[in-house]
């Protein structure tokens, strides 16, 4: 069973590195290269496990990280410190440069948001109405992190279930549609309740990604590490400001 979910516009390796740096509160000028390499490769692994199309750039970066790591291990020549460049230098410069534009992109996003609230006299292409503006849309990384914790939970439970291998992404999509026909929103983790087999969890996850891609689902959360809620776009729904009734 091979499903390829291609995310329309995938953030790149630098984005992933910045995500890890932020998450682990790392000093960008002094990156612990073995730690970051390990975390980075962990992500690539899970993306591959999901058979997400991992862009070639991610592997190039993986190779770069490993090269830097090995260079850091080389003994440094005493007396030549001045001359010797830090092997991380180029990477850091790229990250700093990229981060500036990421910030600029956020600035543009807020400008766009403001502008969409007003309508010019002749609105040839009127801006759209957005779903309730509570929380923010989560990135693929947030979803992957949530998936990781689902995996962690089942590992703790250590229950082995045999599942018929006929579960398809299409069936899962139908199931999620049915759930959302009854309710306006559903907790990400709720969709995995009763699922213990890795393959089943992965199929559910792929179904969620596929529905997001098709515009049938919107994933939002109030803050990082908060619960992720899934909505039908355009439905007038909201998350209560305290986060969520966890259950």
């Amino acid at each position, binding site marked *: 069973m091979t499903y390829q979910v291609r995310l*329309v*516009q*995938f*953030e*790149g*390796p*630098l*984005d992933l590195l910045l995500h890890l740096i932020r998450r682990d509160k790392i*000093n*960008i*000028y*002094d990156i612990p290269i073995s730690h970051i390499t390990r975390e980075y490769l962990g992500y690539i692994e899970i993306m591959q496990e999901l058979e997400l199309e991992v*862009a070639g*750039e991610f592997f*190039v*970066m993986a*190779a*770069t990280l490993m*090269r830097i790591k090995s260079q850091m291990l080389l003994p440094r020549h005493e007396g030549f410190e001045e001359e010797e460049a*830090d092997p*991380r*230098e180029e990477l*850091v*410069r*790229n990250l*700093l*440069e*990229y*981060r*500036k*534009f*990421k*910030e*600029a*992109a*956020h*600035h*543009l*996003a807020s*400008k*766009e*948001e*403001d*502008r*969409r*609230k*007003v*309508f*010019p*006299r*002749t*609105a*040839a*292409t*009127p*801006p*759209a*109405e*957005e779903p309730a503006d509570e929380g923010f849309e989560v*990135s693929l990384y947030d979803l992957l992190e949530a998936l990781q914790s689902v995996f962690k939970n089942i590992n703790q439970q250590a229950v082995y279930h045999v599942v018929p291998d006929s579960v398809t992404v299409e069936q899962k999509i139908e199931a999620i549609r049915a759930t959302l026909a009854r309710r306006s929103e559903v907790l990400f983790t709720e969709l995995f309740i009763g699922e213990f087999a890795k393959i089943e969890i992965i199929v559910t996850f792929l179904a969620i990604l596929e529905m997001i891609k098709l515009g049938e689902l919107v994933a939002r959360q109030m803050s990082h590490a908060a619960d992720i809620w899934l909505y039908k776009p355009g439905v007038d729904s909201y998350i209560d400001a305290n986060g969520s009734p966890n259950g």
Partner: protein
Amino acid sequence: MDENTDTGIDDRSIEREVEALLFASDIPLAAAKLAALTGAPSSRRVLEAIGALSRFYGESGRGFTIVEVAGGYQLTTLPEFSGVVSRLFKGRKKAKLTLPALETLAIVAYKQPISRMQIEAIRGVNCDGVLATLIEREVISISGRGEGIGKPYLYSTTKKFLEYMGLKDFGDLPSLDELERRFAFDAEPSKPLVPPPGNQSDDGGAPDADGQ
């Protein structure tokens, strides 16, 4: 509406002509253009008229106002009416730009004219699809061809970019230095690992795009 003597508008035909033009136009109109159309003696006179109209709309509690955008002036509804006006346009949906698209757009805005290779060197990913989207949305366009192998296309933002974002001009955007300073909370390196960006111009060799 009865004769108003305190708005300073009624008899002064330039105000009323400017209002008529802004009402009829579907694009922002520059002061110089308004001056030429109305026969106003100067752009400054037009700006006075725009000022008088704005005050009048504010004081008389209109649902719209005049905004300065993309080097011109335009009538728009007030933000507080976004809900009701959105209901009118419901279904005619145009999506917000995605984050990768905004990132690419930001790079073009700050570094224009810039080639795809140079954008990709900054973002670290292929940008073909995103660039196509941005061109389709008319916020960037091909503005020329660069030096070097294959004479690559160069991209720049369009006037529509300013309009889409509601920006007066590029001065409305924070400078790159300012953006950098937003991360001042980062621990500074004892010895700067990366020399401060003094001459970051990308004349000469393009930044190397490969990660090796």
